[in-house]
């Protein structure tokens, strides 16, 4: 019996998950090719070590305790989880402009001990602390009780919270603002569904524990998963940018591809300047060597494919996809000569646009002995700052720190190295989880009988815009394809 040829497009978490799952579940029945436009595996979740062993990050990534599927995949790929993952020990540090201080929240031990810790938390005045604590307890219970949480999707989380008695002024604290910031949804609103689903999945200290990897995700996580995929018999084809679908009736018969033109890419600078990447002249061809396709291309890219095909984009399925919006994230890494910002967990609530900063010095320990006393990674989103130049955003962020807590100026700590990424290209953008978005997110099946979609933006069991969501979606696409093959 001849094998079914499956083309998986995209080598981010969703693509790697789908591709390995196919070979794990149907060895000998499928022939899987994983095609992607870049060279580092991991898509938006890639980070890698450069020639000096510095970790290059387009946006800091952490895993949470509830990432069961991701851990499972890593384990099967032979990654030693204990050696690779480092816990941030339940620490997070909100900066509150009202107090001018950076406070500490620790959710490491039991829920009960956290409640005690919360009562003594200095980041909110007592009345507000009690109101917020009562609201959060009620929310965790409501999220956990089950039922279809998507019924809350049409409301933004702020309105949802106020309807449940959270005092409106409390939504102005950094602690509350972080709900949107963590998903890069500022200045947009975040759907109440998205927050409730997050709380359901992070309902215990163990499930919400944050882990980072020692160094680049591409070397430590995605690379070994890619190698595992190859060991299972899969083939990886890099530098192949899909530009259009070729179809006949309800079947995809070809994928138009080309080699991306990387001349617009500037290391250490803003990453790719173009929203849509050009392909090198004369490099385009139509790839037809497949029976079925799983596309894990981000929605902002997918929405640009076959743009001339008005009939396709007017169809109910594709016109719904056009409603999904994505946002531009920002990230910056700064190495200093003197130690700076010695907090063990992420500091958040800092002034926009880059409101989250993490001291990665204890975790990226490839740096040891390299005369770097602090490696700080900043993250945020471009919203509200679209017209600012890179220089303005960087200078503004660095200067803002003079006013934050007792940190002192980062400039005075002696900046040795600075890297800034403005993730404007469509393939780097992250879907916004705005109110009402669920009804526009598709499932894995498409109107084309042999095309399946997966990715963090596709509805799945986890459903959050994160690596675990993408991995869950990839696995679901693979399972659906195998089910259809068996039918």
């Amino acid at each position, binding site marked *: 019996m001849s094998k079914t040829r499956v083309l998986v497009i995209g080598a981010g978490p969703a693509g790697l998950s789908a591709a390995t799952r196919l070979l794990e579940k149907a060895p000998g029945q499928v022939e899987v090719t994983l095609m992607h436009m870049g*060279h*580092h*595996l991991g898509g938006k979740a*890639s980070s*890698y*070590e*450069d*020639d*000096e062993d*510095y970790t*290059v990050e387009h946006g800091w990534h952490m895993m949470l305790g509830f990432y069961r599927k991701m851990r499972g995949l890593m384990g099967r790929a032979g990654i030693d989880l204990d050696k690779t993952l480092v816990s941030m020990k339940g620490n997070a540090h909100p900066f509150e*402009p009202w107090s001018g201080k950076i406070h500490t929240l620790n959710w490491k031990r039991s829920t009960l001990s956290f409640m005690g810790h919360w009562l003594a938390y200095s980041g909110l005045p007592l*009345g*507000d602390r*009690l*109101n917020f*604590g*009562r*609201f959060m307890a*009620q929310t965790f219970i409501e999220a956990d009780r089950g039922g279809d949480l998507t019924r809350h999707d049409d409301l933004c989380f702020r309105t949802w919270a*106020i*309807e*449940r*008695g*959270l*005092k409106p*002024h*409390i939504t*102005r*604290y950094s602690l509350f*603002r972080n709900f949107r910031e963590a998903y890069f949804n500022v*200045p947009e609103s975040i759907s109440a569904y998205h927050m409730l689903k997050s709380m359901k999945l992070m309902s215990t200290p163990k499930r919400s524990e944050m882990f980072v990897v020692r160094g680049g995700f*591409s*070397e430590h996580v*995605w*690379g070994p998963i*890619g*190698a595992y995929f*190859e060991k299972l018999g899969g083939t*990886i084809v*890099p530098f192949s940018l899909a530009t259009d679908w070729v179809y006949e009736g309800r079947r995809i018969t070809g994928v138009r591809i080309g080699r991306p033109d990387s001349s617009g890419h500037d*290391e*250490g*600078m803003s990453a790719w300047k173009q929203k849509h990447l050009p392909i090198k002249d004369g490099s385009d061809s139509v790839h037809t060597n497949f029976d079925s396709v799983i596309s894990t291309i981000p929605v902002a890219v997918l929405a640009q494919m076959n743009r001339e095909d008005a009939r396709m984009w007017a169809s109910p399925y594709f016109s719904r996809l056009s409603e999904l919006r994505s946002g531009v994230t920002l990230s910056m890494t700064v190495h200093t000569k003197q130690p700076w910002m010695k907090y063990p967990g992420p500091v958040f609530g800092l*002034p*926009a646009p880059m409101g989250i900063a993490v001291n990665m010095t204890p975790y990226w320990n490839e740096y040891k002995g390299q005369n770097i006393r602090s490696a700080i990674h900043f993250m945020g989103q471009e919203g*509200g700052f679209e*017209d*600012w130049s890179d*220089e*303005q955003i*960087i*200078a*503004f962020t*660095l200067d803002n720190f003079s006013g934050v807590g007792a940190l002192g100026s980062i400039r005075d700590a002696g900046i*040795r*190295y*600075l*890297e*800034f990424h403005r993730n404007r290209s469509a393939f780097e953008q992250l879907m916004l989880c705005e109110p009402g978005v669920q009804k526009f997110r598709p499932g894995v099946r498409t109107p084309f009988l042999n095309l399946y979609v997966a990715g963090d933006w596709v509805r799945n069991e986890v459903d959050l815009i994160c690596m675990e969501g993408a991995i869950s979606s990839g696995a679901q696409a693979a399972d659906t394809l195998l089910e259809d093959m068996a039918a």
Partner: protein
Amino acid sequence: MAFFLCGVAKAQTSSRPVPKNVEHPEDPFAGDYRPPVVKELGTSAGQVRVIGLLGARLAAGTQPVGQGTVEFMTLPILGLRLSSTLALGSEDPSSLFFAIGPSLHFFPYRRLDVSMFAEVGPARFALDHGAAWSPMLSTGASLDLAISGYWFLRLEGHLAWAVYDGGGEAVTLFDPGGTLGIGFGI
């Protein structure tokens, strides 16, 4: 090949210049960082109101009572009250009363609010020959005056009604009373 494909190829990176003294527009979010001010008053959905009251009941002369009430607001206008009342004077026939019932608030989100309630629950009656338990019904009205976003004063009047076994014969009790107290709503 696999080595390269798996993304372990080392890329060259270089630091970008650190910009200094760069002019930039106003921070579009400056307003977000102003200290939040508590302005909200009165009842709102989801609120839990804990109230301690002292007052008097008039069934057997003027008898001092202490009352603790927890009110869960299911809607801004509709609460669920749980209260317990303890007679502080020895003459009061109903020495202890636990009650549950709805409350209706007429002016949510306001400094001054009026509500009506009805409660039912078991009451303990101290009698010469021992104690008896019997159901008791209470209805009344409260006036709340918010003194801050969290604290409020409450003036409450009620009329309780019960029929209990007073040593072989049914005794009907109409017990009017009033209390004044302070509450905290979170």
